[in-house]
């Protein structure tokens, strides 16, 4: 599974709105006069709020988790074989990734939400790096 492309795509989704916002900010500064001073201030603050909120959401939910997954995918992986005994319902934050905690035997592993897990009790082979399930091999 390729983790690099989704990561780069997510970064681009952040860079493009940031550049657009910067362009709007510069345009407002350039067009500012004493008459429209307050309007330009409001436009600049509002665009930055919208862009900032989007970046906060997108980096937390997409960029940083994908970066972490990419970093983990570059590390040496281990294969864990077994059946899932228990799946936690509440998502947790593990290594900046929002994951579901699963128990395979005595071991607790973390599955990113993008990973489709087999049903409880079904035997499977999991490709794992740093306690994070990167792939369900078979």
């Amino acid at each position, binding site marked *: 599974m390729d983790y690099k492309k989704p990561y780069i795509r997510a970064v681009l989704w952040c860079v493009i709105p940031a550049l657009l916002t910067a362009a709007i900010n510069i345009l407002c500064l350039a067009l500012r006069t004493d008459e429209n001073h307050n309007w330009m201030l409001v436009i600049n603050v509002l665009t930055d709020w919208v862009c900032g909120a989007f970046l906060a959401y997108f980096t937390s939910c997409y960029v940083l988790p994908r970066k972490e997954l990419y970093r983990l995918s570059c590390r040496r992986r281990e294969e864990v074989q077994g059946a899932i005994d228990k799946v936690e319902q*509440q998502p947790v934050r593990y290594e900046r990734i929002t994951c579901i905690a699963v128990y395979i035997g005595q071991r607790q592993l973390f599955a990113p939400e993008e990973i489709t897990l087999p049903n409880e009790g079904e035997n499977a082979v999991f490709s794992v790096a740093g306690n994070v399930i990167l792939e369900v091999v078979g």
Partner: protein
Amino acid sequence: MKKQAAHLQYDWWKYVVALLIPLILWCSVFSVLKKPKANERLHILFLGTGLNCQAVEQELTAYLQGNTAQKLKSVQVTMAEYDDENYANQLLAATYSYDIIIISENQMKDTVGQDYFFVLPGKLQSAEVKLYEETASDKTLPFGAVLFDGEQETIFGKYYSGTQICCAFISPQTVNLYPLNTESREGDNAAVIAWQWLMEKL
């Protein structure tokens, strides 16, 4: 939905930062941009007590509107008292922010004229108003004008309720003194007009 709730639990502070930083940044930038340039403002500083600054401001604004073509965004009269410890630094800084500085007797120092101001150009000297003179290099030179000494009735005296002698000086940094200094652009003569107004006899 669970994912969104989980990310808010950990990353709520990013939204607070995204809300605060643009507000602080743009308010600061825009307040700097809104500040009138040196030739768009006329600021007068009065060192002492007992001046009705608001009345001077109103009267002077109205007078300048009819007597100068210079476009002024701000006419301000400020009253302050400097302490002995920081007097030199504060007065030096004031010469960069104010066009005309009026100093009352108890805020005056011996060589204040020659230390901070220049010799008053002839055009700003009035036969009706006494000059403030100091001896520099064995010469007695006029550095300012006496606006109030209990005897002469100038416009300034109308707004001053104190009893101290008050002398006025022109800031050497002013750019509103056309054609009396090279820093002023053509037409920027608000300081000259304001000076003449302050000296007017009642």
